[in-house]
């Protein structure tokens, strides 16, 4: 039982509950600001993102989000390119001073 719980880390139904105040990073338009709330996905994927600064509470700015291509996000003084699929797993709260 427990073993199963371990192997599906990050995939439990609890994670899928959507919070109306949150949107995915992929849905933020170019120029919008947000604050990271949560990251879904496997442990390895989440580790990679948190190492680049995608931790709960980090402010970020979407530098570019066009069409179906990858996004560019600016956070903690650096710019990170992120595939659209990956950006869809980062949940953010859009901050008040977002430029839209």
């Amino acid at each position: 039982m427990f073993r199963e719980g371990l192997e599906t880390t990050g995939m439990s139904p609890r994670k899928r509950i959507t919070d109306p105040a949150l949107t995915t990073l992929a849905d933020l338009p170019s120029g919008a600001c947000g604050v990271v709330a949560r990251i879904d996905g496997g442990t390895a994927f989440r580790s990679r993102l948190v190492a680049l600064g995608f931790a709960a509470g980090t402010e970020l700015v979407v530098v570019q989000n066009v069409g179906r291509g990858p996004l560019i996000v600016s956070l903690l003084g650096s710019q990170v390119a992120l595939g659209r699929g990956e950006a869809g797993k980062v949940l953010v709260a859009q901050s008040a001073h977002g430029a839209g």
Partner: protein
Amino acid sequence: MAPDSLTAAGSPRTFTVALAGQPNSGKSTVFNVLTGLDQHVGNWPGKTLEKREGVCTLDGCRLRIVDLPGTYALSAGSDEERLARNVVLHDRPDVVAVIVDATALERSLYLVAELLWLRSPVVVGLNMMDVAARRGIRVEPDVLETALGLPVVPMVANRNQGVREFAATALAVADGTRPCEPRGPAVRRDHQREHEALRELVAGAVPVEYPEEWIALKLLEGDDEITSLVRGRVPADRWLAIEAILARHEDGVLAVAGGRHEWIGRMVRAAIVRPRAGQVTVTERLDRVATHPVWGLFALAGLLGALFWVTYAVGVPLQRALDGLIVHESARWVRAVLDGAPPWMSSLVADGVLGGAGTALTLLPILVIFFAAFGLLEDSGYMTRGAYVMDRFMHPIGLHGSSFLSLCLGFGCNVPAVLGTRALGERRHRVLTALLAPLVPCSGRMAVIAVLAPVFFPGHAALVAWGLVGLNLAILALLGLALRRPVVGKRQLAFIMELPLYHAPHPASILRGVWRRTIAFVRNAGSIIVIGAIVVWLLSRLPGGEVDTSYLAAVGRAIAPIGAWLGLDWRMLTALLSSFVAKENAIATLGVLYGAAGSDRSLGELVAQSMTPASGLAMMVMQMMFIPCLATVATLRSELGRWKWVVVDLVVLLATSFVVAGVVYFGALAAGLG
């Protein structure tokens, strides 16, 4: 490792310094400044990761500097990260010197936060102070030092400012004269109880070199390596208790990371002053074009076009000059020197070694120029933008933007392209990229095309050459579509890549890159090419001394029916076979088989007379897609670790080259090129 005590002979004390840092932090520059030419590059035992080690002498002490792979963190997510933390844990360096980027201080300190749990003394090098200042970011090293409880040395590594001071500080910490009392991060408050409970559960069960609180932390993070280590060592009842905790806290990775980020926030709060938002930097201005979905593609095409133009405009005349010098002049010299020796000996050296291996050597100028131009784009920070704009086109074939960089390197030589896949991290992704790399036409193959295309298509040679390159890339895409499922599976690979700031390229680091890649070609290909050239020479002389009656000719004739339907005779097939040694050998072999040296006509004329343009085109297509050279095959084998995928790749490439050559041949016949 404990410092060696002063021996009777008075040899200097040696300390081990592990040099850590995130990618793009300038760590390599620091390493190069400190060790100069006194460095050794090899592989980590049992790994395909490059190990660089060097020695720096300071105040009568020897600092053995071990360059850890550049990583953002120390999770189990990639080979580099596992290696970096294992070196610190198992080799116990006297000090860990970590380079942080002043322009991205918060992100850089994440690695420091990870390192502090490993209990080795840490020194921080605050690099790129100049770039930070230009961007209006003010960092106070003293304030940071007080907050961290670690020595912090400001530096501008690429201008050699502060690097000696950094090394001296590392030495002072290593020999204990300078205290190091870090105020390390804690686990976020809401998970502290779990962390403590885990620590108690693993207490006494893990090897002593692993700090227990670090093990507990990694369990909480869901680290596979540590999880299986603990599972194999704790009693069953304790393991159940551990699993129970972990199952309730599957978001542990975020809590642990959150704790690190909170700590970072406290550390930098007083130490950094940021500019007001709204300032447009050079990087942002350049990126408006470079990362634009449309203009970015034009920029990439333009830059790559310039890259190829420079490579061939400057490289080809040099190659021709070298060809005259090495292959012809020195062959004549060898014959003169070996005048008294048996004729087979001077022929072996002049025709075999110089004619075969020498031809490969003449490619060096093209390679060096290509790697220099590529290095310029890479070092300035542009290449990651190229990867970014190419990302959407790489997804359908199972790859993403980062693979584009490795593949691009293949235009110079496939060997560094396959080696370059090391940077891709995820294994399946590496395998797929490496398997596709041989379809990127290398300079060796382009050299053959440069000879053959004008023979069959005078006046349109450039057009034909571009067409052949395009065809290869199209086949690469199709093969990617086909191999995607079996190699990568259904999963989409994550594309996450830092876009570093643009900066003026550093000639020294470009030169080092050129050296590293050229050496990879020479080392991996060199001996194989010399031996291969001798074998081909032997086969073309034995048993009777005449090419026409040689073993090589016999082999060529035996397989002649394979090429007959394309109008290729045994000489073309033999040339194709010899290109397995080195692509550019095809020309030398044709020269021997057509007896160009003894004829008053050129090789081109002789070849053009022997076959139709349609067959010539088929030959060129085949040559471009045929199995890669021996050096590439050997590199594929060593990088992928197993023969399975290499063999599949070779079979697929062989079949593809025949099928596509056939289609092109009959197409050309229909178009009236017979």
